[in-house]
């Protein structure tokens, strides 16, 4: 039985797909057989971030409609063993997903994989609900600013009321807070909420803090999950995050302003 983890946020553009790609890749690097499922039907992005956009033949909607089987549809990553991608359809919309169809596909994947990462679309409509409905755990991606925090709060409410676990009265979804685009310099200037502020408002356990980094943009543009860039601060922060998801206690890094030399080295190269 696979563990199903939804990566969600409510708000768009906070780094859900980047985080799904990084976490999925990190779990596979740790030897766990992992599949990342793109639930953003109609706005297919995951394949770009993972650098496999030219290898998409069939998609999630084809599998749900029985037009292709999983074996034909899953894309095996060329860099990391144990890593697969189930791409979204670009031509359909989010109503193409049915609860029964999603359940059937997840059950089929569950028999074969250790982890299923569901990359949720933004918003709180059917697509996002579908991505979180079957989840065992949730990574709530939040930027350190008020609108993102409020949207995360909203999604946390839905996780505890609209999921399968909630409806069946099972133990609730395990919620993790992933703070992305964190910039300690701007926190000091009062332009950004601090880790403590966000933790206080959302009151869930912190699983990672990803610093704002040029490396993330570079990684996205080159189709390389940023976690593979082990030199970068963001890559290291995602590696820490994956370790915490797997139950390891890892101290938090990149929470304070780094020495100038380090920043220069990072942006200079």
């Amino acid at each position, binding site marked *: 039985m696979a563990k199903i983890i939804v990566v969600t946020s409510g708000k768009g553009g906070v780094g859900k797909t980047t985080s799904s790609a990084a976490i999925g890749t990190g779990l596979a690097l740790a030897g766990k057989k992992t599949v990342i499922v793109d639930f953003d039907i109609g706005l297919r992005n995951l394949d770009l971030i993972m650098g496999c956009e030219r290898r998409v033949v069939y998609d999630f909607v084809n599998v749900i409609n029985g037009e292709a089987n999983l074996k034909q549809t899953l894309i095996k990553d060329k860099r990391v063993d144990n890593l697969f991608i189930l791409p979204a359809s670009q031509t359909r919309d989010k109503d193409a997903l049915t609860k029964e169809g999603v359940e059937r596909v997840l059950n089929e994947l569950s028999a074969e994989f250790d982890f299923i990462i569901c990359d949720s679309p933004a918003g709180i409509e059917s697509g996002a609900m579908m991505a979180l409905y079957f989840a065992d755990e949730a990574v709530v991606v939040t930027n350190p600013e008020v609108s993102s925090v409020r949207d995360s709060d909203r999604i946390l*409410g839905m996780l505890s009321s609209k999921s399968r676990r909630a409806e069946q009265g099972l133990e609730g979804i395990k919620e993790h807070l992933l703070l992305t685009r964190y910039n300690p310099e701007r926190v000091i200037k009062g332009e950004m909420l601090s880790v403590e502020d966000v933790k*206080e408002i959302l009151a869930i356990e912190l699983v990672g803090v990803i610093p704002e980094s040029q490396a993330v943009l570079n990684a996205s543009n080159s189709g390389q999950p940023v976690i593979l860039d082990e030199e970068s601060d963001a890559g290291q922060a995602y590696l820490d995050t994956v370790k915490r998801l797997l139950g390891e206690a890892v101290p938090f890094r990149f929470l304070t302003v780094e020495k100038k030399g380090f920043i220069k080295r990072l942006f200079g190269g």
Partner: protein
Amino acid sequence: MSEHSLELKGSLFPLSVLHCSDLSISSLQSLLTAKLAQAPAFFYQAPLVINLQDNDSNPDFAALKQLFTELKLVLVGVTGANAAQKAAAQQAGLAVLQAGKSNTAKAVEPAPQSPAPERSAPAQVVVQQQAMDSKIVEQNVRSGQQIYAKGADLIIKGAVGAGAEVIADGNIHIYGSLRGKAIAGASGDSSKRIYCYNMQAELVSIAGNYWLSHSLQGEFWGKPACIRWQGESLVISELV
């Protein structure tokens, strides 16, 4: 999710049960009017069930329904009815309810001491209403969620997020931060209060009198506080 457009789920609701030996319209009207005069707001549009256990007559349910409507009550059904009464009640569009375990047979008789002799006297009305209850929420109330404690106090162990609403006909107690809206005394009782451990509310209201957050951003912002209605205005004070 289109399959959610229709759902049937079982739920339990508190209902007031009316015990009355004489169900003739004229006697019931005067008795109920007197009863309602004691607490008009409390029974306003309250759903009621008639208990027919000690009553073998066959009342005119259509007329009863009409009477209840006139008195601003909602007659939803009957309980403890015999076969003829059941048929007549169903004819009048009323629900036939199975009494809950605690109310079956003789269990109800010995429980309250005072109502028993009252009921033995002819044509006395006893409305059994559950005491002011409490609704308890163990977790955080998140943005977009709304919780209403009808006819009850509301106790929240966690925080109330910005964009969340907590509403109670009674008092509201919040043991976390209040960043959303809190509305106490929602049915019009201005003696109700709001207590919270960390006051950062968007809005607080007691019996329809409200303050927005700018009125709260003084001495007590981010601190434990109590809101109450005093004289002609809301008053904020420290909790301890």
